[in-house]
């Protein structure tokens, strides 16, 4: 072998031996995980993505599904997924329940990443850290609570609330987790909301504030039938003076935040987050919308007659078409609002048989808006039971399409009331949505029992 040949061979062999760099490719248009979070701004943007997920959940999707579980909506037109929810026969093949569940945990994971990464961010101001953690915990609480209400039996179903809830994720790891008990989930929700209430700022633009956390504490305690705590938190929010009841009945405003909104979803001209409402409920853009009120709800609404301004929210007929969102292309979606606080406080005080004057005032404030000042007021000498009854009636009306009525029925069922929802007992198996099919990919996860509600 001559020198030239040897040289050629050596060149060929060695020419590539040191080319490990040829194997280094990194994905474009994305950020590697190790580079993603460098500073406080990155954490803030990650946090905002949590609100983005919340908007995807609560821009109508969760509300509609919860209404379909309850008695307020009639049978869907032809959507297979809506029909499965309506008949309370979701399986892990049904897409809508799997999608909602997945989104809840997207937000929980991202919240955990925020909380877990403070130590890798340089020069993070302590006040920023606390605020970021408070917001992350706020969202984590909303999502755990939102999930446990939809995918598990209600609080109070078992005496110790040791029935199966949902996985409790407080760290961003990939290990499979079994379902925590409902009691454990509620305990963590309260811890997170308490932290948020203690540490969130009073003002925070469209994002979570101290009062937002307290508003949710009122709601959570209410569902736990802890009426005293619920009333206290609701009172805190009401008495803060930050929010005022809207003068009209329309809380779904376009381009402005309604004055009674404590926390909600923001839509913008180029970013519609309320499309689920528009596409499935509006009766003015299609003759046969996918969803309409049930006859039961229409009958309930009709009892108060045309004097109730809320009667304009529907059109009677073979399907009680929903008008509440007509002519709205997009709008902001209030989630926690002052009306809700008044109604919670009123019912809680009625349940406690305490301070009924305040409760009656709360209810009359709502009725004054609906019927006109001085009309159809609850009498000042109303009994506690009458207050509770009135509060529930107003609650059902005011939260129509907000997906909150079914959870009240489940709470009352768990408290021993005989509750029947569209012919099925409140605790029929299919009332809890089935989990995402991906949750069954690891052995040992306990699925919900299906069906049994028809």
């Amino acid at each position, binding site marked *: 072998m001559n020198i030239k040949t040897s040289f050629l061979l050596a060149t060929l062999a060695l020419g590539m031996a040191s080319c490990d760099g040829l194997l280094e490719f990194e994905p474009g248009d994305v950020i590697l995980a190790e580079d993603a*979070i460098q500073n406080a701004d990155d954490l803030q943007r990650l946090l905002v993505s949590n609100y983005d997920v919340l908007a995807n959940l609560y821009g109508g999707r969760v509300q509609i599904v919860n209404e379909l579980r309850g008695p307020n909506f009639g049978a869907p037109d032809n959507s297979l997924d809506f029909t499965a929810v309506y008949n309370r026969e*979701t399986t892990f093949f049904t897409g809508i329940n799997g999608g909602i569940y997945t989104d809840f945990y997207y937000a929980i994971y991202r919240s955990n990443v925020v909380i877990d990464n403070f130590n890798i961010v340089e020069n993070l101001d302590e006040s920023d850290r606390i605020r970021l953690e408070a917001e992350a915990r706020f969202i984590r609480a909303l999502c755990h609570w939102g999930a446990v209400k939809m995918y598990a039996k209600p609080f109070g179903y078992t005496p110790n609330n040791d029935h199966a809830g949902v996985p409790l994720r407080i760290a961003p790891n990939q290990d499979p987790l079994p379902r925590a008990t409902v009691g454990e989930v509620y305990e963590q929700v309260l811890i997170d909301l308490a932290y948020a209430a203690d540490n969130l700022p009073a003002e925070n633009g469209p994002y979570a504030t101290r009062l937002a956390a307290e508003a949710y504490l009122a709601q959570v305690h209410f569902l736990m039938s802890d009426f005293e705590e619920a009333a206290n938190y609701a009172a805190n929010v009401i008495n803060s003076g930050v929010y005022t009841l809207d003068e009209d009945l329309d809380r779904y405003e376009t381009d402005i935040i309604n004055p009674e909104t404590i926390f909600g979803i923001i839509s913008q001209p180029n970013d519609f987050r309320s499309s689920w409402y528009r596409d499935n409920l509006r009766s003015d853009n299609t003759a046969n919308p996918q969803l309409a009120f049930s006859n039961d709800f229409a009958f309930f609404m009709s009892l108060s007659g045309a004097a109730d301004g809320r009667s304009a929210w529907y059109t009677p007929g073979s399907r009680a078409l929903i008008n509440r969102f007509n002519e709205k292309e997009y709008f902001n979606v209030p989630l926690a609002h002052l009306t809700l606080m008044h109604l919670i406080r009123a019912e809680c005080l009625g349940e406690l048989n305490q301070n009924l004057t305040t409760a009656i005032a709360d209810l009359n404030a709502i009725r004054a808006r609906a019927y006109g000042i001085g009309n159809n007021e609850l009498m000042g000498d109303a009994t506690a039971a009458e207050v509770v009854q009135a509060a529930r009636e107003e609650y059902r009306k005011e939260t129509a399409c907000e997906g909150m009525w079914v959870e009240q029925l489940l709470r009352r069922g768990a408290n021993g009331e005989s509750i029947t929802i569209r012919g099925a007992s409140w605790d029929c198996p299919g009332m809890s949505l089935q989990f995402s099919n991906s949750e069954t990919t690891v052995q040992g996860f306990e699925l919900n029992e299906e069906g049994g509600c028809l």
Partner: protein
Amino acid sequence: MAYFAKHNFIPMFRLHLVACFSLFLLNSVDAQKLYGTVRDASGAPLPGASVVADGNNGQFTDAEGKYSLNLTAGSHRVVFSYIGYVARTQSITLTVDDEVLNIALAEDAVLIEDVVVVGYGVQRKKEVTGSIAQVDAKQITGVQTPSFEAALQGQAAGVQVSQSSGVAGAPSLIRVRGVASVSAAGDPLYVVDGIPITQEYFLRGNSGALNNNPLAAINPNDIQSVEILKDAAATGIYGSRGANGVILITTKRGQKGTSFEFSTRTGIGTPATRPNMMDTETYLALRQEAWENDGGTGYVWLPNMTSASDNAATRQEAYQRALLTNTDWVDETIGVGVKNAVNFGVRHGAERYNFYAGVSKDNNESYLRGNSYDRTSARVNFDWKPTQKTKLLLSTSLSRGENNRIDAAWSGGLGDAMANALPYYPVQYAEDQVDANGNVTNQAGEYFLWFDEWGGTKNPVAVRELKKWKTTEDRSISNAQLIYSPLQNLNLKVSGGFDYLHLKEDVFNPGALSINTDLGSASRYANYVLNWNYSATADYHLDLDDKQAVNFLLGTEFQRTDNYGYGLFYGQVEGPIFESDSLSQDADSVNTRINTPSQHSFLSYFGRFNYSLNDRYFFQATARIDGSSRFGRESRYGFFPSVSAGWVVSDEAWFQSETISFLKVRSSMGLTGNAALPDYARFGTYSAADNGTTYAGDSILYPLQPENPTLRWETSRTVDASVEVGLWSDRVTMELAGYHKYSTDVLMNVSTPASTGFTNFWDNVGTILNRGVELSIKSRNTVGEVKWTTDLNVARNYNELVNIGDYTPDAVSGGTNDSRVIVGRPVGSFYLVEHSHVDPESGLPVYIDLEGEETFDYNNDIRKYVGDGLPEFIGGFNNTVTYKNWDLSALATFSVGAKIFDSSAKRQLGVVTGWNMRTEKLDRWRQPGDEATYPRLTLDETTYSLPSGFPWWNTSLFIYDASYLRLRNLTIGYNIPLDAASTLQNCRISINATNLFTLTNFPGLDPEVVRDFENAQDRNMSPNVTYLTPPQERAFTLSVSTNF
């Protein structure tokens, strides 16, 4: 091909030394003359052939093939060579007289029959220690298929080829010795003239129920031979990508003289089978029966005419009006496809160069109306030998495939005809439609449109006629090889290749198919795949003595693939932008989406060592180190060795048999790998939503996928053994092979619990076992005037998913196909509720729960393994009879033991919905005591215990035996006798029929099915699932070919 001849010079080195020594001793002797003529095998002189004595005294033959060398007396070694022919070396001892030495050189084609192409070289068949199946050009072009890979069906043992559906341009599915992958691509590696080519089946996903076929651009007429490498000894040299087999494609090259090849064919295609859908009267009667079974009174409501809440009179009027229309939507969507093709090639060979050039035009209409795939291709292969030590080989091909698309299967077309196109729907309105106010809503002649349950606008005729849809694939595969031989038997080769693929899809949806707009919308999707390959090898052959020889191969290879593309979306346009760019300028809106670019690369080092003893004991060791950019630094490189040995027993002196003329045993073991996963699966990534996504006007950052830094190679450990036998002077040859392939660290894109914050995760999870036996028999049954040959191959493969860790069957699924990963069962098992029978009393379906008890309750919790799509036996049986100038060839293929999941039957034969039904449904329960295949008819899915809103009756009732015997190909040919002096040679006329008949018990359309897949995982896991998939075509073709 000439350079392959070097491998035949086994004693060359020793002779060279002897010759030099002799020359030294005799250099003082007077000059003598050695002369003669060099001819080819037919006796024709070879002008320009090289004649070299003792390595330094040479000349070329003259126009008559004659040469004359002046040599000294004594011993000499003379080498005769010519491009395209097997070189020959002759030793001669000259005395004082002149000597005559006439030589005949055999063509390379003869050589090819004796050697097989292996990775980075060739080997004599006798020396091969691995498992390699060889398919020649005649076998490929002898079967009329739209793409070459389909022609491999039934040709090689252990190679399962499932042919594509009836959609033009659809890809086939090839599995070599089973499937050893789950989520990573399980297709074999395709190598064209040494270049591993792009194999992207999902550039456009399954748009329109069609996966693109990356092999469709290869012109079958350019192929000289195909080698299929099956075991580790054969595929080990491809290391990281050999786990699922390697298919080597060698294209034609030039040869001596000048010859032209011309062939043309024309034919027609029709569906091999035809769906039996109900007519209006039958459909309405059964729908009425379902309505009444459910307690309905009066006439049943009808989709797109009435609803259940309409009053009885309205429903009755609609029912009677529906009876007036009876559209056969199957007839409306299928027809007769016309095919024609023209191929022209030229081969030329001269003293220092040769070339092959071929052009081809192939127009292939499918039987689906409006659907065709047209391929135009050209290839030039050029070999140049500037010096005795240097050779340059250049190859390039250009092709364009134009696919005139239609919707198929779930996307529409014939799929709609088998689904939502009810027979009472008219194709067009017969008269003006007037609303309650007297306004004309639809004019006579307008297409009747309806919406399916997903909101899609339907009417397969209207969509076909109005929607413009075209996919264009431009492909070029080129490579250059420089071979330098500084020493005898030492070859240094540098090779560079470039594979370019540009897939462009243009769609125009006219406003007439929309309820919202008068104008249409247009989309353009463009994908580019650029694949560079570089390799350098050195091989050296050394005869240690007259009994021992060794061969070394060392090499390195680098391959890089870039994938990128974009999408353009035009709103409010008047027509298809691909027909007139000016139309795009008037678009109301234009949106652009840039695909995320993706790159990957391989860096490899490999070697092969061969040792032969007494020309009957053969040993081989290969090793390859592969690095892949798809893995992190800790697990980037994989080591894939193999060892093998072969023993030609019949060459032993003690072996004496009049019956057994050839006996060889061989065995191998080794490791191969697979890294065909997405390029960036190992990275944890975030998106900064640079596309403008914000919330409340604030920018966001969010995680996309979790990282897995430990992702590593999927590895298969294979042991293989075989016996090759030749009987009665090789009148009958056979090979029996067995193998055991154990694949570990199998890559799976597992569905992770959603509560982790992610839904999918790539990980090395599984273990898969494949083991099997293969038998090939070739027999020349009769010789003489009537020649009858038989080829039979049959293979049995056992596939088992051995382990998937803590995951459940639902962790990995095959798209929407109800195939899952079930430990102890094959990859691609069907996981469904088991159907038992129809209860004669109630007419309700009876299911079997996990305890084996009968139940009326349908529940996903009682899903179980109910069969799989992997056959127990596959094979091919080919007989050829030749009599004088006539020949008759019949190729039958068979598959035994596989199940097929007729996934669309759960709607066609299940709950009565807005889908038409198949006539088998008439065998339904009607009254107590009936024993029927199908349960009582119902419009309510809960009757069958299905969840509300879930009419998908996923039960084993629709799992069928997919065994079949198919007459794949029948050819009658006539070779026109021509005088040797005739300009035309090898004139042949043949008539060919494909898929003439199929014997099967499958009641559906086609027991051999390749549906559209969502991704590689689906492709691995869902063989033999049909979902409105068009059946294969039955084609009749007339072919004419000649050389001149």
